[in-house]
């Protein structure tokens, strides 16, 4: 079975796919709690499918771009499970997951935008079922378009992206189907940060040793 999850948005989404179809799904009830919710979500889909960890034959993970802290929870979980279970791990650009859902909904030429915070969005362009540009991190005003834009990033900036369609957040069920069908490029499980780290030194009370 393929275990798939994405943590590149404020939400956690998990799915289990048996090669034919998605057999169990989990969506976090709270946002910005990746560290707390991903592992119970994985345990939940396994339990609901009546499966054990050793039934997992591959792991798929959204590699972002997305807020770093949550993104790393997904990636370290995927890499560590793949090591412990001795199974392959596939990375997929998280914007491609939204794009796959948009294509299933009938769109062909469109952009995908997710929230990059700091008044910016992560953006990629799609045509004829594949990614032709991006992902990049940009200011909405600099990427303003009347083209159809999919994703929560479009909803946040209606002045720049007036034509919004399709799903708001990526779904692990779509991720699982996308990987099984190899609809988009499968990547190594490496994070797409797209930004350099802020070089702010930790202030003392937080550093413990």
């Amino acid at each position, binding site marked *: 079975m393929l275990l798939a999850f994405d943590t590149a948005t404020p939400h956690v989404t998990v799915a289990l796919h048996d090669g034919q179809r998605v057999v169990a799904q989990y969506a976090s009830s709270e946002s910005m709690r990746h560290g707390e919710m991903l592992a119970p979500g994985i345990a939940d889909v396994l339990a609901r499918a009546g499966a054990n960890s050793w039934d997992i034959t591959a792991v798929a993970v959204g590699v972002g771009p997305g807020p*770093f802290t949550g993104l*790393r929870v997904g990636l*370290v979980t995927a890499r*560590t*499970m793949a090591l412990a279970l001795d199974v392959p791990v596939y990375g997929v650009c998280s914007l491609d997951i939204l794009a796959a859902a948009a294509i299933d909904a009938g769109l062909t030429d469109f952009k995908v935008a997710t929230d990059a915070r700091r008044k910016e969005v992560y953006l990629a362009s799609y045509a004829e079922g594949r990614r032709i540009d991006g992902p990049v991190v940009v200011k909405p005003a600099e990427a303003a378009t009347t083209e159809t834009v999919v994703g929560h990033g479009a909803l946040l900036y209606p002045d720049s992206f007036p034509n919004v369609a399709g799903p708001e957040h990526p779904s692990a069920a779509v991720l699982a189907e996308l990987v099984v069908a190899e609809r988009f490029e499968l990547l190594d499980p490496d994070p797409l940060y797209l930004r350099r*780290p802020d070089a702010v*030194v930790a202030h003392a009370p937080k*550093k*413990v*040793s």
Partner: protein
Amino acid sequence: MSRVTSEPLVLGIETSCDETGVGIVRGHTLLADAVASSVEEHARFGGVVPEVASRAHLEAMVPTLERACADAGIALGDVDAIAVTAGPGLAGALLVGVAAAKALAISLGKPLYGVNHLAAHVAVDQLEHGPLPDPCLAMLVSGGHSSLLRVDDVTSSVTALGATIDDAAGEAFDKVARLLGLPFPGGPHIDRVARGGNAVSIDFPRGLSSRRDLERHRFDFSFSGLKTAVARWVEAREASGEPVPVADVAAAFQEAVVDVLTRKAIDAAVDQGIEDILIGGGVAANSRLRLLAEERASARGLRVRVPRPGLCTDNGAMVAALGSEMVARGRVPSALDLPADSSMPVTHVLS
């Protein structure tokens, strides 16, 4: 021999700051202690950059797990329990280790123990010097913490007697090293340079040691005033056009720190009626601190335990050591929704 092999095999993960540590123990026997450090990436900033540390933890996690298993000669599937630092520490850094530990617990179907980093610094000594005496007085001194703890049971009962009210001891070492043009982290360089200096040539202040301070802060520390005093002394020297006697400044500064640390630790032990003092954390690697602590303790009939330097700094072995003790004492494992708690109090040993 059969008793030894029947003891649980515990893997511990530590990511609270800039070291990615994976340790493996069987009972009190250390089998592997793999550490990957991002310290060099932080050096040019003069301190730890949280985002840089978190990125490094993600990259180091799988290679460090693999190295620890290879060193211990085991497969991950052999592990009986997983322990991980749940706090305190840098939030984003802790989260990488906690998520990796949960991934192992789910994959292997084994219990997870989210433990306190400070208690782990205490528990690690069991790997070197055997079971901890109950109670013991622990002094943890590092780049982020300076605490005096009463440890009645390292898996369930740790009481804070005192702590720093401003800078941590290790932080003072870093800042003074910078002032003297020595590299980061400053502790080992001050220790080395101080050996050629005269510790009594300059009289630097001993923080929170006056009679009035002792009334309110008997077991607390303060190193901020000392750091400022060193800075003023060096500036005055430079202003007068005279060369700065780096070795003397380093020695006198170090003496001021270890004088206060050892005096307060021994006072706390005597006050609590405890005969065993354990020193841990990165600053415990300081040679002068070890020497003075042993001298002063033996003069009072007390015993001092200090793990070897490699076990004093942050590592996975200490987390595995505490996890092993959790298993041995039948503590209840953590739930899969275990949070990383950046300000986890020391009284909270297991999450």
